[in-house]
């Protein structure tokens, strides 16, 4: 069977957004003019002109009134009207300064009004440009995490580094693209509106500290910043365009016209020679869009890193001596009473005392039950000398650049118990990460996979055992001395879909604990299946699972799980064990080899796979 998914999605996402477009009809065309027609027709197809109008692809168009002066989505009509306005109205540049600059550069033979003539009318714009001097621009990527559903695929936004503040200042400006969602929106409505452009979105500005607090502190995610090597004139042009967009509303498409896609279009406006967005016509994943930016020639300069809260605390703990670490734990978790002579009594140096106090202050932040300790710690810390950098901010060796691609294809071979012939397997996974995949740049110890199709072909010339996994998630969050986050797993899969259809759903909740490179989990399980071929082929099971995972030298990962399930109602055997031992090996982010021994319900399979990520 041939499945040309991308072609299908291409058609779907080109047609549906137009069909479901929101926003009323645009105002009627205002004026026309007799200008150099041939040149106008030619320039109406200019890629920068289309980008300035956000008409390069249908789903990025602006839906609020006033942005398209011609009242239509026709770039030619829009060019005619804009040129006419720019030639006849000196205040045109107050509202559309980027368009004005482009028109002047393209129609040098025409006589435009003196740019300074409308200085009074442009007072607001001129004042803004004078006060908001942007020195440089960075693209920002908060690392993935599994603590929130928002964190799995991450996010990208821009940081405008203002001339008046240091580059590292959190007073700089974050520029993102976001939709206004109603948290009480019913799920079905959210899905349909999200897919078909039912949400209104804008480019948004916020203080960078707001984003650092959200991602770095609340969600404890490392933040990666990449300076973009834009010239002053490129930055200037982008800011002019941002002025044009301040009242612009867009449709938000979860898959295509999302935050990452629109940011790419901004970069392309700043530097028209860039072609970043063309590969993302249907789906834009933030990490993939970042890779495209990083790969663009002469675009990315210095890289910076802001460690998230947990990373920072881990780095601080790593700098403590064994007695220092023990004292920290006694104070933080053991209820040891705080007094200033405690440190010297334990032989802790002044420098390490400061570090312990800094760590205590960080780790008690926001904990009302530890407010007294925090107060004592901070008061004592303020009596010690100034100093003590929390961590050295060297760019980490594991970063978004070293992460494997979101999609994968694989070729595998295997054999099942009870059959003499081997099978070959082709596999495509749309997203995202399995704990056996190369871990760099991803969440360790956890799995989050979507749309995983495996087609098997047996030596006896039959398709069997093929499967489609809609979702496979194993989210492990380690318990600590005083925090017990829930770990969970969920899987929805259709097995044997080419011969019969067995739909299996399973889920579990429990706890996990990380010990350096080893993780252990224990969960309660529930599982259901529906077998289309068996009479009354429905089963409901409950049980428990124990899991173990460990990493060796970052290249070799081993994962084992053992489930025990008992039937509440089933045509299958009442109670059964299922287990899996898997090994993943990789030396780089592009290719890995994995092998699994899966034993379930009287069947066993041995699988060997070579996986390529892209």
């Amino acid at each position: 069977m041939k499945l040309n998914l991308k072609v299908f999605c291409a058609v779907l996402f080109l047609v549906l957004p137009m069909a479901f477009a929101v926003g009323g009809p645009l105002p009627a065309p205002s004026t026309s003019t007799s200008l150099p027609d041939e040149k106008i027709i030619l320039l109406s197809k200019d890629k920068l002109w289309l980008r300035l109008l956000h008409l390069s692809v249908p789903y990025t168009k602006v839906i609020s009134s006033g942005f398209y002066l011609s009242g239509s989505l026709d770039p030619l009509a829009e060019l005619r009207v804009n040129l006419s306005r720019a030639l006849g109205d000196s205040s045109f540049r107050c509202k559309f300064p980027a368009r004005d600059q482009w028109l002047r550069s393209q129609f040098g033979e025409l006589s435009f009004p003196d740019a300074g003539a409308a200085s009074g009318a442009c007072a607001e714009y001129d004042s803004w440009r004078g006060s908001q001097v942007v020195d440089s621009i960075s693209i920002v990527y908060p690392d993935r995490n599994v603590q929130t559903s928002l964190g799995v695929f991450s996010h990208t936004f821009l940081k405008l580094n203002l001339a008046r503040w240091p580059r590292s200042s959190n007073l700089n400006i974050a520029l993102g693209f976001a939709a206004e969602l109603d948290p009480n929106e019913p799920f079905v409505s959210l899905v349909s509106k999200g897919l078909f452009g039912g949400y209104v979105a804008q480019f948004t500005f916020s203080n960078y500290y707001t984003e650092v607090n959200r991602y770095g502190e609340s969600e404890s995610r490392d933040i990666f910043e990449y300076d973009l090597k834009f010239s002053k004139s490129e930055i200037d042009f982008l800011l002019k365009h941002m002025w044009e967009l301040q009242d612009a509303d867009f449709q938000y498409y979860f898959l295509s016209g999302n935050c990452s896609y629109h940011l790419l279009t901004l970069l392309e406006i700043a530097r028209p020679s860039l072609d970043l967005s063309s590969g993302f016509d249907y789906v834009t994943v933030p990490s993939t869009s970042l890779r495209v930016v990083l790969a663009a020639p002469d675009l990315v300069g210095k890289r910076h890193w802001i460690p998230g809260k947990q990373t920072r605390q881990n780095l601080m703990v790593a700098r403590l001596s064994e007695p220092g670490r023990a004292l920290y734990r006694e104070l933080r978790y053991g209820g040891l009473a705080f007094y200033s002579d405690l440190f010297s009594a334990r032989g802790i140096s002044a420098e390490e005392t400061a570090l312990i106090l800094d760590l205590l202050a960080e780790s008690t932040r926001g904990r009302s039950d530890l407010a007294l300790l925090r107060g004592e710690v901070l008061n004592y810390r303020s009596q010690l000398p100034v100093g003590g950098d929390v961590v050295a901010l060297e760019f980490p060796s594991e970063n978004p650049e070293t992460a494997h691609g979101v999609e994968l294809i694989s070729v595998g071979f295997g054999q099942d118990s009870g059959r003499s012939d081997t099978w070959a397997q082709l596999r495509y996974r749309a997203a995202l990460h399995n704990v056996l995949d190369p871990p760099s740049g991803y969440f360790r110890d956890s799995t989050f996979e979507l749309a995983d199709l495996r087609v098997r072909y047996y030596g006896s010339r039959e398709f069997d055992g093929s499967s489609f996994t809609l979702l496979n998630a194993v989210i492990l969050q380690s318990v600590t001395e005083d925090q017990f986050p829930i770990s969970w797993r969920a899987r929805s899969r259709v097995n044997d879909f080419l011969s019969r259809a067995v739909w299996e759903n399973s889920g579990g909740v429990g706890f996990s604990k990380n010990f350096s490179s080893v993780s252990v989990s224990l969960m309660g399980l529930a599982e259901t299946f529906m077998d289309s071929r068996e009479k009354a082929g429905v089963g409901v099971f409950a049980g428990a699972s124990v899991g173990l995972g460990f990493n060796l030298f970052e290249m070799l990962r081993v994962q084992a799980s053992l489930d025990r399930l008992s039937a509440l109602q089933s045509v299958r055997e009442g109670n059964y064990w299922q287990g899996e031992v898997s090994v993943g090996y990789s030396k780089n982010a592009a290719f890995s080899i994995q092998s699994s021994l899966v034993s379930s319900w009287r069947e066993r399979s041995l699988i060997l796979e070579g996986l390529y990520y892209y």
Partner: protein
Amino acid sequence: MNFKMKFVSMVIVSLFVSNAAFAVISSTSAEFFDSTTEGTSSTSNSTKKIFSQNDKDRLEKFVDQNFDRLQEESARGQGVLLTDYVNLVGCDNSRGVVTKAMHDNYGMLFNSGKNQLVNQTEKLINSNSNLARACETKS
């Protein structure tokens, strides 16, 4: 519905679920387009009233969102947010005089709570001629 259609539908739904993560609930900030936004605080008349109401509003917003970390960095005497705060106040901290003063006067500044930090900072600057000078230099 044939298998192909079922498969594609499932892929689309699953991709949707994943990409729902990209939408962030957020409100548009027009602050960036306000030419009087941060950094224009005037400290030239620093004898009594250091901050204008606009300055105070900006400082209080900054303090409100960053108080806990600001507290930690003041106790330590250094940090990005502490430097930001001093910059936002409008002081020249090139020799670390202001951040050191905040470290040395930690109790006075922070023990009155979040709502008093800006006022306490104003008092601190007014009480010390070196600080008053450092906070006059920027405008």
